[in-house]
């Protein structure tokens, strides 16, 4: 069996599917965009950093080359060359002159720490006039001295190192050394050393960095450190740089960035010094506000999601709400009411559906109304027929009594009964109207009682006690007479002694209650129940009933037909204490 996870209603279904799809779409979009943003920012930052690095290289090169020019100038200086060639027999004055001219170069550039000339025998002429050569140094073993000889007239640029050639002074320098070759003979006269204070380069490297965690460092051609801001950490292995990878970056030329975890390395080579200057950028510096970016993205996602969610909600309810409305109205058909849908706010399809439904319901309503009217007419005519049936029995009994009284010569009684009969009939006919004032109905039942009272001499007495205020209210004609007839024939006539019929009437809040009470035989509980159920049954079903039941049922059904189902008869009775039949009528003004 297929298990359905998607809920059954159309609305929930639309909603769920939309939500899932939108969720996925926004999620993927966010991921892609975030990545894209990060990558863009990162690559543009790296590009900037690279530019900065190139600038650093240019500055270092420019700096070195300016000093190199000085070194070239000095080594090409003819005075100095002459002095060096005449070594040994130079006079002290000339010696001082040379030192002074070297000293002038030192003074001209504050970034030059020292300028020296070294003879091949190790003798040192220093440009610094106060300087004393460190006696513990063997100059000829120095890297810069050997480097200069190897280069043969070209400038040798050393790595950074502590220069200890002057006693008591230890300075970080970069040494530019150069073999002095005689312009005349081509002989090697000695080595010129220009010591450049390293702090300038150091400052450059420290200042041209990006971010809080970025830094630059320099390695020489062998991969040794020329400068590293945390050299001690590097030498004690607390921090390590991927030097081989960085150097291979120079050869590969595929990309210009090497990444190790969250550090990015870029390298540029200074042509003059053969140093590799490495710029390190830290990921956290490049996208400093990534958390902020992330929150913004998350927030945008949230807003989008809510907006789309609301829209989905509107769309789905826009579809389903009219449908539900339609459904609710259609459901009333089940309970037998036919409501129209009318004009509704909905899509064209739904509106058309509603229109068609309304047309259908309209037709059904017409049919039902026609049907009801027909039924009512039929019942009314039925009842009229029934009503008409009662009268002949009574009529000929009464006429018999009149005849009998006439024979007896009781003229006064004949007149009285005849006039009562006449009145009775006049009211019964009442110009064919079904509704008459209570006053007339009282007159009618009075006439009836007069006749019956004469026929059953001394058998019963009666009292009509209906509130005179009610006399003008409408009542269905021949309502009370069947009840009185019932009281006489089935109550009083059956019992011993003199009977009493009490007809009383009061107004309730919105109804009129007329009671016909007798003190006759009464009914057992079973008889009462049979009577009540007989009265309540619609005449169409016609159960077999006693005559008594028939009369009461006709009255009951007629009242309900004219005044509504809330009105009619109710009975209470018990054996030997008589019967009370109550008529309930609406308390409403005469209308016509």
């Amino acid at each position, binding site marked *: 069996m297929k298990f359905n996870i998607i809920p059954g209603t159309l609305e929930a279904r639309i909603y769920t599917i939309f939500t899932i799809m939108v*969720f996925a779409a926004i999620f993927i979009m966010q991921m892609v965009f975030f990545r894209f943003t990060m990558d863009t920012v990162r690559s543009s930052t790296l590009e900037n950093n690279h530019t900065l690095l190139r600038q650093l290289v240019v500055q270092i090169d420019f700096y070195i080359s300016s000093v190199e020019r000085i070194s070239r100038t000095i080594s090409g200086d003819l005075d100095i060359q002459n002095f060096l060639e005449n070594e040994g027999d130079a006079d002290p004055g000339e010696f001082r002159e040379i030192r002074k001219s070297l000293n002038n170069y030192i003074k001209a550039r504050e970034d030059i720490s020292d300028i020296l000339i070294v003879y091949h025998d190790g003798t040192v002429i220093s440009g610094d006039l106060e300087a004393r050569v460190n006696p513990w140094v063997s100059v000829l073993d120095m890297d810069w001295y050997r480097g200069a000889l190897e280069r043969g007239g070209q400038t040798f640029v050393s790595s950074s190192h502590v220069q200890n050639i002057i006693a008591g002074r230890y300075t970080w320098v970069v040494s530019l050394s150069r073999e002095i070759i005689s312009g005349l003979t081509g002989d090697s006269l000695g080595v010129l050393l220009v010591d450049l204070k390293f702090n300038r380069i150091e400052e450059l490297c420290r200042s041209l960095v990006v971010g809080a*965690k970025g830094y630059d460092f320099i390695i020489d051609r062998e991969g040794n450190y020329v400068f590293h801001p*945390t050299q001690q*950490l590097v030498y004690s292995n*607390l921090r390590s740089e991927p030097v081989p990878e960085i150097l291979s970056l120079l050869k590969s030329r595929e990309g210009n960035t090497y990444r190790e975890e969250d550090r990015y390395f870029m390298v540029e080579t200074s042509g003059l010094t053969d140093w590799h200057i490495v710029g390190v950028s830290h990921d956290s510096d490049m996208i400093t506000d990534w958390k902020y970016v*992330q929150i913004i993205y*998350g927030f945008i*996602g949230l807003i989008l999601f809510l907006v789309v969610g609301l829209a989905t909600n509107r769309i789905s309810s826009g579809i389903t709400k009219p449908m539900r409305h339609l459904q609710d109205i259609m459901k009333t058909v089940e309970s037998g009411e036919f409501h129209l849908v009318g004009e509704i706010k909905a899509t064209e399809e739904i509106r058309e559906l509603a229109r068609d439904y309304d047309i259908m319901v309209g037709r059904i309503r017409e049919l039902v109304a026609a049907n009801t009217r027909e039924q009512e007419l039929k019942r009314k005519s039925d009842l009229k027929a029934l009503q008409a049936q009662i009268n002949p029995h009574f009529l000929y009994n009464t006429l018999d009594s009149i005849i009998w009284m006439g024979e007896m010569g009781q003229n006064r009684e004949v007149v009285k009964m005849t006039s009562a009969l006449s009145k009775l009939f006049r009211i019964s006919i009442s110009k064919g109207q079904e509704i008459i004032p209570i006053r007339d109905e009282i007159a009618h039942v009075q006439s009836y009682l007069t006749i019956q009272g004469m026929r059953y001499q001394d058998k019963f007495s009666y009292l009509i006690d209906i509130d005179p205020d009610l006399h003008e209210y409408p009542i269905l004609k021949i309502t009370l007479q069947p009840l009185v007839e019932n009281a006489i024939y089935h109550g009083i006539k059956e019992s011993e002694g003199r009977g009493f019929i009490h007809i009383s009437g009061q107004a309730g809040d919105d109804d009129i209650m007329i009671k016909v009470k007798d003190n006759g035989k009464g009914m057992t509980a079973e008889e009462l129940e049979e009577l009540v159920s007989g009265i309540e049954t619609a005449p169409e079903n016609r159960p077999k009933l006693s005559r008594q039941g028939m009369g009461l049922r006709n009255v009951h059904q007629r009242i309900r037909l004219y005044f509504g189902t809330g009105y009619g008869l109710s009975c209470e009775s018990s054996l030997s204490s008589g019967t009370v039949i109550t008529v309930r009528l609406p308390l409403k003004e005469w209308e016509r």
Partner: protein
Amino acid sequence: MKNWYLLLISLMAALALFLILSLFYGQNTQKSPDIDDPIRIVLKSMDGDPMDFWDVVNRGIEEAAREFGVQVVVTGPRFEKEINAQIDIVNRAIELSPPLLIVAATDFRKLVEPIRRAQKLDIPVITVDSGVDSDIPVSFIATDNIEAGKKAGTEMKRLLAGRERRDVVIMSHIRETATAIDREAGVRSALEGENIIGTWFCDVEQEKAYKITLELLKNEKLGGIVALNEVATLGVTEAVEELGLQEEVLVVGFDNAMKELSYLESGVLKATVVQRPYNMGYLVVKAAVEYLSGHAPEPFIDTGSILITRENMFRREYQELLFPFGQ
């Protein structure tokens, strides 16, 4: 009714989206401890020459603070001998309730009391360079001074081999300081079997060390002096140079003051044991950050020491140690 239920579901889904995005993005976060107040660091001396021991420690501290993204405030007395001043400074630092306190104790015992106070206020303490007589500090970052003393002693023993003058004295800088006690113990253990005639204290005064040495040099059998810190070394070497006894009396010292390096080149000082102050500063902040991030650092971290002689003093890896940049 049903709409509310759906709205709730979508709200929850939206929230989930937000959280997932945050979490996913958060993967590449760097973890730096979440502290607002700066870490307080009380060093032994703040008024030294540029590039002296504590200045270099400070540079290491700054580098680590930069790397790990934490704030630090470094204070201390003007001079190392101002023990009471340091106690006051530590007390004041405690009152600011920093997330962590780093102390370089000027006195092994007297600084225990303020550190107890810090513990009562739940301020973790890390000691650097010189510890205290207590196990409250969560970590102690220093040169293993016993090991450093041994290096000095071993070098002295090597130099003394086959010489006639064999008496050795130890010139200590101060009593009751852990560094002095440990170094002396290290020297003595390495010089086992040599004739150590005694330990003198110069109370961190170069003049006093100089005068004591002048007296000691009257001893004809004196063959070696081991000086246990910079001041003591300078006082001793000054006296030895003045009397021109550098070939007779061998001096092995500690630390790397510029003058000491000069003596090293000229041979008055035969060897010196140097510490790594930069690494010390760096590692103490690193340990503090580790602790604040919830990882217990090692109870003792040795920052190492190196024996420097004339032969290796200009080696590339030692150059920046002996001659820090920016001079």
